[in-house]
């Protein structure tokens, strides 16, 4: 299976660059934690990879295919999925309809619902009526249903109680073990590093740490100074 390669990406927003010259590779079966303070540019980086915003410089590749200029739809067709920050549900669609959008077959819908019994019970409810945690489950389930090769997850935990988040994290791990390459942006740094193999810390748009997640977890002072951009 192919890897997703990001090389020398710079993203410009409003006044100037919010991501400068960032590069890394997402490998099949591995989780990469992307952490950093608020406003560091994590969301902007994900958006440049999935095509929500254009990259000012640099390239994104899937295998040998350069996708930097591809449309969002074309990138999705190559197996890239992006779970946006906030609750990206379609409020007027039911749980089943949300899943049908990405699952190609009925058995796949049932397979995914089996992973989320809470959702299975409310399969015909409009998503707008679900709790925040359940809505985030819908978003995750919908992304899984598509069987993406590369999954970018932006602050799944936002607005959720830590206990709900720790219920969702194993799903991410499970999905990686099935062969997906995952980029996980999280505020709960320790939880995210705990399930990841690789880690990237960004601060003010620059990479300040890049390496093993376990090493970073074991060295709080390194994490601290990376956050501060040192």
């Amino acid at each position, binding site marked *: 299976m192919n890897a997703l390669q990001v090389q020398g990406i710079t993203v410009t927003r409003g006044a100037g660059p919010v991501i400068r010259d960032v590069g890394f590779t997402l490998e099949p079966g591995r989780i990469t934690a992307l952490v950093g303070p608020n406003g560091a540019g994590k969301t902007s980086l994900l958006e440049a990879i999935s095509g929500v915003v254009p990259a000012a410089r640099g390239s994104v590749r899937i295998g040998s295919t350069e996708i930097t200029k591809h449309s969002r739809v074309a990138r999705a067709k190559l197996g890239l999925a992006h779970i946006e920050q906030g609750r990206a549900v379609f409020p007027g669609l039911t749980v089943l309809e949300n899943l*049908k*959008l990405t699952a190609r077959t009925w058995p796949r819908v049932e397979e995914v619902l089996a992973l989320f019994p809470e959702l299975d019970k409310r399969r015909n409810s409009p998503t707008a009526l679900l709790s925040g945690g359940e809505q985030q489950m819908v978003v995750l389930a919908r992304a899984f249903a598509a069987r993406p090769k590369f999954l970018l997850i932006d602050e799944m935990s936002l607005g959720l109680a830590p206990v709900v988040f720790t219920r969702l994290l194993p799903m991410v791990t499970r999905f990686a073990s099935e062969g997906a390459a995952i980029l996980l942006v999280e505020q709960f740094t320790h939880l995210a590093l705990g399930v990841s193999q690789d880690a990237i810390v960004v601060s003010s748009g620059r990479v300040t740490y890049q390496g093993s997640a376990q090493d970073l977890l074991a060295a709080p002072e390194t994490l601290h100074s990376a956050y501060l951009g040192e």
Partner: protein
Amino acid sequence: MLQGALAGLAAGGLYAVLAVCLTLMSRLVRVVNFAQSATGMFGCYVAVWLSVHVGLPTWAATVVGIVLGGGLSALLGWIISTWLAEADIGTRSAVTVAVLLLLISLSFILFGNKPQPFHPILDGPAFSVNGVVVSQVTVVTVVLSVVIALGCRALLTKTSFGLELRALSERPTTAELMGIPAKPLAVAVWAATGLLSTLVISIVAPSQSNDATSLSMLVVPASAAALLGGFRRLDLAVVGGLVLGMAQGAVAQVDSLSVVRYFLPFLVIVGLLLWSQRKEVWDVAR
């Protein structure tokens, strides 16, 4: 009164179909299409020209006109989804006002400012109620408006195409990130509503005031009808169109009131807007 109301039903069916088109456009592609009926008018005028000056049989000219109406609408949709993809609904709608004016002037330039010698596609009575004759045009437009509304509802709720359209209308960026192609789907909606508008106008126009301005301004009563359904509900849009047409017909029968019928759509729009505001004030007061 009954005679007037039944006479107004053909116009009502026309309003209803146009209102369904306006509702679909506003829900699915974020635009209040002020050029909805002007596109249809233009297609019909070209059809009349083709049959009068080129000698095409009426049915063939009509088909060409309908396809042209759909194509014109699709082109406009393509332009708006290309250059105003992220613009708000106000900006996108403003463009259609420009197109409305453009199509009216263009039809004056190309076809002159006289009403066109339309050949009716449908002619003659269908049946009579209490001695009041109901025309074939009336029956066909009313049935068409109901069938189109039901068909669209089934399409939106029962097919994967409809599901994708609803997803796009709720969160366009998220839908695109999932691989749902926004632009082709939007252009399809534009094309479909363009076809439907031209179809229904070509059925009803021969029996109504059919100068370019009158036909283009059908968008006003159609908006009044769509407003009844809040530009969201297709069933209420149909009801609104039919009731408005019948009310206009009934009012036209009473000599002292007959000019009121021209203002009726405006009165309905103002009334509905005020009423919806009143509800909000009430909600806030609570």
